[in-house]
């Protein structure tokens, strides 16, 4: 099964955000990029999105090299202003489908309705974005991403700007959606618990510049509930790996 193969190598910018990073995402992976701020994980995601091109190395999607943004890699951003303010919830999703040439007319509307129903926003389908809460806006963005049926869904800390309760709820919803459709997702976060909860595979990055530290498997989800000890152990392991080099220099200073 060579669904989505994504090889990313090296970015050597004036400011080197990431250095010789490579990884592979397979179809239906919930692949997490995890690391402290400054490890270039968002930059990596933007490169996969096609917004910037690597200085060294290459990014491939299904064998083809990624050169520019396109609807086969839908992005869900962290910011709440990613919906077009002049279109209602439904229109936002429909427009994405129509503008990218995926669907047209009634078929697009139908598809949009389905996607909106999946994120439980049918009641707000005709609202304009500024009347929605932050969590609802992010749900619309996710619905939009899923309606497009991209080869891979790119999520750039989509829940980071939400309050803790909403964030937890959204994480559960995302997992439910994944159970339904098994989409491939590349998810950037700086929160270890979020990474462990959502991911099936986690790539740890070290900061300045970002380099691969480890690529781990997360726990199966049924085990997470039955065995909180293992969950804690994993979180602890990730924590110690991420903060290993940060603590040491501080000790030397002291």
């Amino acid at each position, binding site marked *: 099964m060579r669904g989505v193969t994504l090889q990313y190598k090296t970015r050597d910018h004036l400011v080197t955000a990431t250095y010789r990073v490579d990884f592979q995402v397979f179809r239906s992976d919930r692949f997490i990029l995890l690391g402290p701020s400054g490890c270039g994980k968002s930059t990596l995601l933007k490169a996969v999105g096609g917004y910037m091109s690597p200085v060294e190395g290459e990014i491939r999607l299904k064998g083809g090299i990624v050169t520019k943004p396109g609807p086969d890699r839908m*992005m869900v*951003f962290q910011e709440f202003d990613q919906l077009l303010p002049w279109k209602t919830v439904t229109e936002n999703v429909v427009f994405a489908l129509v*503008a990218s040439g995926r669907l047209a007319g009634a078929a697009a509307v139908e598809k949009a309705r389905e996607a909106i129903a999946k994120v439980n926003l049918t009641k707000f389908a005709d609202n304009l974005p500024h009347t929605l809460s932050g969590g609802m806006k992010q749900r619309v963005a996710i619905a939009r991403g899923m309606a497009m049926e991209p080869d891979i869904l790119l999520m750039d800390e989509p829940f980071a700007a939400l309050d803790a309760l909403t964030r937890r709820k959204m994480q559960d919803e995302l997992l439910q959606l994944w159970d339904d459709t098994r989409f491939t997702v590349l998810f950037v976060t700086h929160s270890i618990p979020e990474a462990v909860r959502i991911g099936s595979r986690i790539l740890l990055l070290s900061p300045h510049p970002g380099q691969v530290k480890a690529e781990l498997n997360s726990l199966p989800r049924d085990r997470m509930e039955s065995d909180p000890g293992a969950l804690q152990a994993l979180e602890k392991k990730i924590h110690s790996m991420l903060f290993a080099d940060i603590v040491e220099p501080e000790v030397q200073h002291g």
Partner: protein
Amino acid sequence: MADPVSVVRPERYGQPVEPAAFGIVEKPLSAWERLGNVGALRKLALLVVLALAWEGYARWLGNPLLFPTFSATLAAFAEAVASGDLPGKAWTSIKVLLAGYAAGILCAGTLTVVAISTRIGTDLLELLTSMFNPLPAIALLPLALIWFGLGYGSIVFVIIHSVLWAVALNTHSGFLAVSNTLRMVGRNYGLSGLRYVGAILIPAAFPSILTGLKIGWAFAWRTLIAAELVFGVSSGSGGLGWFIYENKNQLEIPAVFAGLLTVIIIGLVVENVIFRTVEARTVRRWGMQS
């Protein structure tokens, strides 16, 4: 009061009431409050006060040749409207104005699209606006008269000049202010070129574009009336400016005021009806402007 030392307190639990149980508490607004909430009414009240002040001052002055009363102006206005003179002249002006305004917006649109798609275009726009924006349109009128002759062409030319730079400058700065996330969203859909500009940049920059259109409209009016005043000397087919000029020569001062009043009324209608409606339907509805 005792020092706020943290003491172990018992936990407490509330019993939330079903929302249906307490109903909706509403306090009706008084009639005055409701009237006060209508923006048009507040403005109308201000207009009445201004008209009364005008009437009072003119009567106190008692010199109809210098400053006719409000009622005399209204009478002259009604007379000119009834004779069909004023509406005809106003229509002539508006026709020229709309032609110049539309052409100006078209030019501004083209220039701005070029400016956001290429770097040299940006430089061109910046250079041209800094050169021509401070240049009063009326200063170009003598030149325009040589190029396009007396009449329609010259006036449209100076109106284009007055509209173009204001609209282009505002549109361009609006485009630059479009949030990066929205730009990335547009490109994510695979939009590019004119579709990208039309579907993403223009609506996202609409607040500034609208400001530009308003300023452009006001500039166009000023230029038009000023140009018609100059023209009046030698051309018989003038619009409102010519009407004002003609009546001044005949010392029909109330009619001069009636002409000015017409300019004001058209301005008020355009600003408060047309632009207000566009604003309410777009940027306010979208929550981009409160």
